[in-house]
């Protein structure tokens, strides 16, 4: 069975965002790419269960999330090479985001429970509605809202508290992140 090129293009168009979601979940580029690849295999071999005209990104994100939950989550703590790989893959754009600040944010994000992490990313970065995010995560809309709120509160705590007692080299960056700027 040949795939309808229009469907194929919808799949291709979703990959960059799907991959960003995978990297956020895995914290490791190689593992995330494996996960995306596995998602593609799964999706394309079950493409008949996709109803044309419905939300392709939500469908693919659901598949990826289920795969991650079943296979990858338990290995999440092994972050051996994650930071180095991640930094290496990302091109630095100093005019946008300082590197240290960026890494600090990612570290804080990684401290959140994974259900909060994924809710925050789906809504705050992938741009899904609360309804779509709830469908992707297989939970109620209210649950997604509460997870997003808890994630934001916890991140604010983590990012702000770190700056209070720290007079080390990162302090200026932390102050900027907390909204204070450099004194």
């Amino acid at each position: 069975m040949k795939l309808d090129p229009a469907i194929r293009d919808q799949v291709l168009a979703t990959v960059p965002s799907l991959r960003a979601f995978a990297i956020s979940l895995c914290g490791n580029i190689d593992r995330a790419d494996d996960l995306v690849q596995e998602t593609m295999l799964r999706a394309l071999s079950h493409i008949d269960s996709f109803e044309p005209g419905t939300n392709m990104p939500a469908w693919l994100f659901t598949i990826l999330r289920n795969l991650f939950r079943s296979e990858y989550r338990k290995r999440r703590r092994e972050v051996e090479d994650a930071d180095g790989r991640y930094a290496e893959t990302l091109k630095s754009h100093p005019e946008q985001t300082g590197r240290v600040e960026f890494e600090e944010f990612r570290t804080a994000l990684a401290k959140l429970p994974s259900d909060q992490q994924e809710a925050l990313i789906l809504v705050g970065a992938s741009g899904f509605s609360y309804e779509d995010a709830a469908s992707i995560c297989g939970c109620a809309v209210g649950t997604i809202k509460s997870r997003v709120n808890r994630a934001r509160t916890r991140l604010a705590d983590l990012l702000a508290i770190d700056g209070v007692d720290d007079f080390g080299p990162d302090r200026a960056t932390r102050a900027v992140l907390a909204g204070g700027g450099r004194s």
Partner: protein
Amino acid sequence: MAERRKNEEMKNPKTSLDAAEPESDMPDSDKPRTRDSMGKPATPQKPDARLGREVQARIGQQLRAMYDEIVNQGVPQHINDLIRRLSDQD
């Protein structure tokens, strides 16, 4: 003014809680709880709960910046090849 206050807060969280009080523009119901019912600071080690909105805005920016850096990398070649190969299969 607001910028300076936050820096002071970071240096001296215990006293700056009081200083920050009058300028807050948040409705009472939205205010982070910084005192317990006895009027003592409930969480003196967490003065930045008061930074609320600005921190939230920055969290949103950081999140999208992190995400978009990956999105802007496009489709990796091996995944592109895989999709094209699978979609041409009989």
